[in-house]
């Protein structure tokens, strides 16, 4: 009798074990952080890249294949940002659930309006993305759009925890909306501030805060500037001065520091994603620090 009861108890706990945290494979830190906000303890998040790495150029390492093999949900930016490595991971993992078109594959760009759709798609134009600029996470309103869709997707994949995801999303979304309002108020002095960017990394941030992008250091996306080109940018800045040169944490400092020195404006490293600077351990921190950095320039 005793053993039968034991077996029954074990059987009763089995479904609970099966429903232990679902595995989320996040291509970039911002989506990993978002999945943690919405999923809480119900999800186990693995973030494939760090703020120190260029998301365009990641190696399809064996460790990434091993993680993708066990993922229930793969959460990526899309718009060909990960085209050099993600398709290989999906194919090599042998995980049918996370193939393109399956609920287990989530592309963030599908839920926001992309900027900078190129008129011409040709490699002579550099590393252009046919769908538009993929660096959508620098506008917090996009985070909210993606979050709403992600909450729904998590509920679809893990119906047992649907209520939990909705509740956590609601809570996050309320705090996020309040924060966005706060950031927008803080950012009032930034309106119209002219800046130079190294790569087209901050298009959405610039658009959100009404900054003015007066020059890009890369002559074409993903193509490093020559000294001659930088000199042209420097000359251009004589007539249309900018307040700072912005770059992301993972980007090489050479070009922006050379220019900053030449035209005597600060070269500023913005976190770009979660983990890109001290104090950016979560999404709120990311924008707190970004805003603080920008306000320092405006002063």
């Amino acid at each position, binding site marked *: 009798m005793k053993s039968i009861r034991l077996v029954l108890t074990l059987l009763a706990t089995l479904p609970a074990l099966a429903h232990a945290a679902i595995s989320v494979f996040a291509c970039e830190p911002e989506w990993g952080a978002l999945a943690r906000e919405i999923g809480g303890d119900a999800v186990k998040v693995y973030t494939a890249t760090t703020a120190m790495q260029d998301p365009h150029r990641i190696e*399809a390492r064996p460790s990434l294949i*091993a993680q993708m093999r066990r993922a229930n949900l793969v959460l990526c930016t899309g718009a060909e940002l990960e085209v*050099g490595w993600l398709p290989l991971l999906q194919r090599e993992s042998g995980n049918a659930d996370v193939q393109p078109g399956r609920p287990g594959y989530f592309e963030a760009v599908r839920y926001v309006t992309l900027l900078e759709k190129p008129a011409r798609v040709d490699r002579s134009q550099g590393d252009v993305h046919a769908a538009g600029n993929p660096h959508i996470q620098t506008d917090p309103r996009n985070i909210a759009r993606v979050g709403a869709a992600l909450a729904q997707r998590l509920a679809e994949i893990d119906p047992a925890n649907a209520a939990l995801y909705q509740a956590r999303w609601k809570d996050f979304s309320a705090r996020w909306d309040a924060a966005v309002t706060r950031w927008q108020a803080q950012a009032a002095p930034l309106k119209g501030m002219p800046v130079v960017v190294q790569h087209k990394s901050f298009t959405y941030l610039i658009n959100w805060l009404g900054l003015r992008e007066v020059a890009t250091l890369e002559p074409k996306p993903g193509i490093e500037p020559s000294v001659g080109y930088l000199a042209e940018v420097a000359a251009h800045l004589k007539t249309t001065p900018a307040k700072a040169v912005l770059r992301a944490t993972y980007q090489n400092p050479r070009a922006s520091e050379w220019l900053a020195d030449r035209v005597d404006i600060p070269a500023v490293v913005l976190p770009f994603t979660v983990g890109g600077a001290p104090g950016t351990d979560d999404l709120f921190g990311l924008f707190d620090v970004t805003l603080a950095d920008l306000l320092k320039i405006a002063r």
Partner: protein
Amino acid sequence: MLRPTLMAAALAVAMPALSANARADAELDALRAELKQMKDSYETRIQALETRLHAAEIQANQAVHTADKAVQGADQAESQAKSASAQAAPLESPAPASLLSQFNPEISLILQGQYANLDGDIENRNITGFLSPSDFEASSGFSIAETELVLSASVDPYFRGYLNAAIDPDGGVGVEEAWFETTSLGEGFKIKAGRFLSALGYQNTQHPHAWDFATNNLMYDAAFGGAYTQNGAQVKWVAPTDLFMEFGAEFGNGDSFPSTTSTGLGDYTLFSHFGGDVGVSNSWTAGLSYLYGKAQDRESGMADLNDVWADTYFNGNSKNWIANFVWKWAPQGNPTERYFKFVAEYFWRDEQGNLLCADNTAEGGVCNGTDSAYTSRQSGGYLQGVYQFMPHWRVGYRYDRLNDGNYNFGANDAYLPVYDYAPTANTVMVDYSPSEFSRLRLQYTQNKSMIDISENQFFVQYIMSLGAHGAQKY
């Protein structure tokens, strides 16, 4: 006299008119462009407003819907409103038109060419002591290598297809790979069938354009005549573990050295690969594979005891073990700036069967068509390091060494030489990649693969990739 003056006068009148005309045109163009810009920007704004309106409508509808229900019970309504607002929020846009989906299938083209400076006096290139494929043709001067055309796409939700066709510069198209694989088996399983590069070892699945050097290593030349291709099927499984573990098997009638297609089914490979990260800056992979091949009239060649070229034909079986190890380092895991890559592979081969030395007495040789027992136990490998010391620039060094071990020609010992010689090669290269899609390379090789010959080889090579952005394997 009158004419030039008249001409000048006419010109003087016409010039301002012309330039005025041009100016007017330019102004008109500028106006048109401005108008177009305004139109475009308004169109996008209107579109954005429309989407927002649509979203608002949906939310309003949902709200009305839930409000109706609210009459039935306040508690229930509240929970519904919550879920309704949460569900109405995301408006999924259709899949953005990506380059990949616009081109269905994905198409890419690899253009390769080189200038080689080799020792023109060397005839019948082979590897001393090794029965290796007899087609080591190498020519000095400018040449284009095979142009590779690659097509791949999902067949349907269950399969994916791939074709790699090599266009021979002298005419003709060769099928390097043509296979389909499953995409929906799940649980880490995948089946592939057709003609494909075997998953054994490390370099075997790489096409020449992905090599880190302009020439192949001696091990792959001696062991597989370039790379081992299988005509058949492959099953592989990735384990659900943190440590990457992959196991697989291939069956078929091996399409390349050391097998021959004529023997039919019966060739197989077993392979395993492991890998992981060490901290954020280091990663590795290692593997062990086994290849069993059957050969029928497998052609090789060597100089006989009279130093006259003799064609040989091997019938028997070939057992091969292959070990591979790769270590990569990139500061912070960001290979854009700097990285180092170390690769080492080693193979052991055991062959048993009969070897026929074709009659070459007409050319002054000593072989008379004797078919006698042949056994060999040989090994070899390579070590290489490639360092990207700044963006776009890499340097590399490779050391090749084969051990001829024991080999025995039986009765043919009377006609064929047995040496005690270890073929080696030292290679250095520097390459420059203006972008991910183009690469220019300079290489020097000191090749001692043939006894008594130390050859200096120089190469200038280009590799251009057009079309779909192929993902690079680790």
